[in-house]
């Protein structure tokens, strides 16, 4: 007891020393989970702007048939970098940033488990992003083979591909370290009385996501390393002429790639499961079944990878197996949607911006789930794969899914981060603007795909003109609207709509709302006492032993 108090004091002194760091040192040497979370979030937002600008470059070229702006090769570089940057630079770091900021607060822990590793896992990201950007300016240009990097096309590419491979190595390392931190923090640093089945859903989804990343990030690293040696050291993993097989890469890539889809979706589920109960002023419905659903989705995600490869020419039995397994994912996903709706049912709902984004998420993620169900049917997938239908599908899941949840999370926790309230009117405008133009951009892509328009082409036959023009107009409006969000966040930091109380949301009961707003640099240096944990849990979960 004395020993542990002593340790606590020592840690305390140590922390104070760090708190003194100012200017660039505060950020470069950051070990505080809140500082690192902030770094992650700003990094991810800048990557979002960069990847978004590339998307607008793509949509500008596709506004009309014919080549207007770009050489086809540069167009391919844009689609490739847009994909890599959005997946690895924007969405994934944003969730890691949220986990960094919020998990210790929500679990009653003083910080993440490995503070210095946390620093390194963030600071690997900027060099990785720099490599990707530099690749645009080297001979041969940036990688242009799609974010999936299929060989032999990626073996043909110039040195931009090597830079991308190293960037992916760095991003993978960063993800693995971030994940180790999350797993350790969640498993070992929860407040007394908070058992695994009592912790907030966001902690659950972060935990499961971290396990997925630890499992598959090395697989991706292996795949791109094999590409690298095929390119420069005469191996023939993917070269048929030397006895290799180009399709082998696809199996390895998608063994990573499909769990990756859930790495970008599960934390979103967690966020929505925090926001909906708060604004419905009701506990989350079916908490335990939600946990089971997250775990079964994670497990199933390892058994469906070849549904990305139905046109490769798999044997019939493989087509059938992967089709059935893929369809099966609809069951736990459906359970989640039903539980969210049951959470809203008979609630006492108010519709602040986070709630709007959460409901928007449920609506559009469900649409993306439906198109996913259509795609799971192998014969239909053969028609749709590599067409705009797939582009529509994954943007429903990743933009209206992952990104909307991130916007919701930002508005939800911004008062806690800054101590100020954001401008609610502007937030609502941002939601409706995004909601409308998102659908104008991506819904017509379903039609394009059904009619047979291939993806990743800079120019298209005339019958695809109308919907492409609509999508391009939608994309520019959607993109410009994101400046509203940036303005609102900066404005909030500078004072916003006034000071935020510790608990700005009436229905919020998790532990992060027990500390002041803005959250002090160090929180929960002493774990919250069991009564406090219980109080929050009672309101949030109404667990079995409620009186």
């Amino acid at each position: 007891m004395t020993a542990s108090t002593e340790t606590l004091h020592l840690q305390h002194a140590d922390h104070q020393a760090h708190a003194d760091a100012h200017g660039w040192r505060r950020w470069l040497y950051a070990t505080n989970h809140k500082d690192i979370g902030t770094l992650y979030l700003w990094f991810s937002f800048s990557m979002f702007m960069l990847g978004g600008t590339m998307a607008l470059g793509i949509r500008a070229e596709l506004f009309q048939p014919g080549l207007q702006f770009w050489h086809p090769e540069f167009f391919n570089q844009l689609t490739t970098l847009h994909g890599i940057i959005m997946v690895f630079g924007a969405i994934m770091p944003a969730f890691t940033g949220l986990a960094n900021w919020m998990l210790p607060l929500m679990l009653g822990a003083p910080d993440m488990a490995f503070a210095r590793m946390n620093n390194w896992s963030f600071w690997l990201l900027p060099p990785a992003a720099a490599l990707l950007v530099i690749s645009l300016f080297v001979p041969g240009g940036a990688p242009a083979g799609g974010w999936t990097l299929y060989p032999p096309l990626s073996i043909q590419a110039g040195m931009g591909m090597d830079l991308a491979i190293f960037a992916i190595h760095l991003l993978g390392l960063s993800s693995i370290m971030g994940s180790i931190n999350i797993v350790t923090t969640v498993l070992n640093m929860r407040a007394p009385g908070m058992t695994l089945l009592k912790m907030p859903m966001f902690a659950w989804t972060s935990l499961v996501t971290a396990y997925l990343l630890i499992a598959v990030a090395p697989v991706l690293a292996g795949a791109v390393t094999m590409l690298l040696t095929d390119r420069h050291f005469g191996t023939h993993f993917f070269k048929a002429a030397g006895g290799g097989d180009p399709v082998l890469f696809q199996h390895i890539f998608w063994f990573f790639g499909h769990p990756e889809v859930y790495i970008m979706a599960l934390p979103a589920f967690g966020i929505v499961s925090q926001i909906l109960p708060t604004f419905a002023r009701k506990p989350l419905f079916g908490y335990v079944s939600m946990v089971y659903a997250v775990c079964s989705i994670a497990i199933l995600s390892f058994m469906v990878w070849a549904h990305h490869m139905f046109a490769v020419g798999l044997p019939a039995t493989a087509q059938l197996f992967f089709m059935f397994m893929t369809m099966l994912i609809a069951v736990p996903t459906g359970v989640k949607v039903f539980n969210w709706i049951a959470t809203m049912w008979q609630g006492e709902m108010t519709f602040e911006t986070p709630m709007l984004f959460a409901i928007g998420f449920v609506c559009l993620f469900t649409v993306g789930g439906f198109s996913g169900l259509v795609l799971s049917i192998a014969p239909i997938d053969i028609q749709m794969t590599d067409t705009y239908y797939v582009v529509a599908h994954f943007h429903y899941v990743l933009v209206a899914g992952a990104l909307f949840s991130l916007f919701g999370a930002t508005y939800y926790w911004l008062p806690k981060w800054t101590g100020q309230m954001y401008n609610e009117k502007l937030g609502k405008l941002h939601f409706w603007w995004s909601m409308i133009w998102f659908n104008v951009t991506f819904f017509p892509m379903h039609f394009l795909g059904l009619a047979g328009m291939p993806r990743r082409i800079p120019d298209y036959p005339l019958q695809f003109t109308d919907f492409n023009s609509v999508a391009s107009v939608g994309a520019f409006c959607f993109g410009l609207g994101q400046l509203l969000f940036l303005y609102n966040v900066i404005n909030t930091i500078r004072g916003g709509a006034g000071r935020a109380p510790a608990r700005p949301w009436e229905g919020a009961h998790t532990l992060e709302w027990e500390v002041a707003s803005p959250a002090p640099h160090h929180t929960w240096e002493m774990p919250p006492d069991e009564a406090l944990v219980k109080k929050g849990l009672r309101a949030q979960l109404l667990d079995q032993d409620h009186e």
Partner: protein
Amino acid sequence: MRAMRTLAALACSLALRGVAASDSRISFQTPQTLIAQDIVDLHTWIMVIIIVIFVAVFGVMFYAVFRHRKSLGHKARPFHENTTVEVLWTVIPALILAVMAWPAAKVVLAQKDSRGATITIKATGYQWFWGYDYVDYGFGYKSKLATPRKQIDNAQDKDPHYLLEVDEPLVVPVGQKVRILTTSNDVIHSWAMPAFGVKQDAIPGFIRDTWFKAEREGTFRGQCSELCGQDHGFMPIVVKVVSAAKFQDYVSQKQAAAKASADDPNKIWAMADLVARGQKVYEANCQACHQANGMGSGPFPALVNSKIATGPVQGHLSIVLHGKSAMPAWQGLSDTEIAAVITYERNHFNHVGDILQPKDVKLARK
């Protein structure tokens, strides 16, 4: 339903272009094979189920959104679990999935059954065109984009079949099972014909197969469907379905032509002839990157005064045959074509260089 589709397409085109005429489709191309029809039916069936679920789920949700709100004075009822409904909404969706899986599995098996084909054609993907070999009849040809460059650069009005027209389509007989073997010369391509319900990747070093039986005569159009480099969007697939009699005529004509026009790789060419032939090869294969004036563009280097085009001919030949980073290997061109294009590049653009004969190319390939 049809009226709604038309309305939707109309509204979109009106909003943007101020014209009502539009070829936009919001669903599949008209199916031309039984498999394609099966796929459309399967899709319709699944969409019916989805729409029912969609209406039910969104109905409940929006009922709650509109009624169970604080501003109407609604009080939260803090229930939070119910094992019965959890079991129900796990089991019922599983049953619905089974109802979808059964007809889907039948189509998978039918699609995979390529036995009993009367004609076999090998489709080879090249960067960036298709090659067809009628393996039963001993002839083959390349099928390249026929849309003029000027239309792509917006210097000329676009044809109705812009980017969907080729110099030589694939010709097949109606009502017969045609087996397509796909492979590739360089990177992965995908041979896709939406109206037939066919999409099969073409993988270098491997042969995959697919099949179709077209029910109607006509010309049908598709595009390469796997990213294969810069001109991925410019290698369409056109299939002309003709009567059995016309197909026989076509085959005999092709066989005769193949005999007559085969280039003799041992022929010794005169400079002027080889340069003239080389210009055609250049326009068809090289111009897209290196440009008509040989100045290159973006990441693609200029040929004019380049070390390769003015240096030793062996280096020039090697890069054309084997490629280098973004430059593909042009093994798919004939010895004569390669000799011609190299001679052209070395004696055009104000270059004065040597002549390369086809037999030297033949030698270098070994």
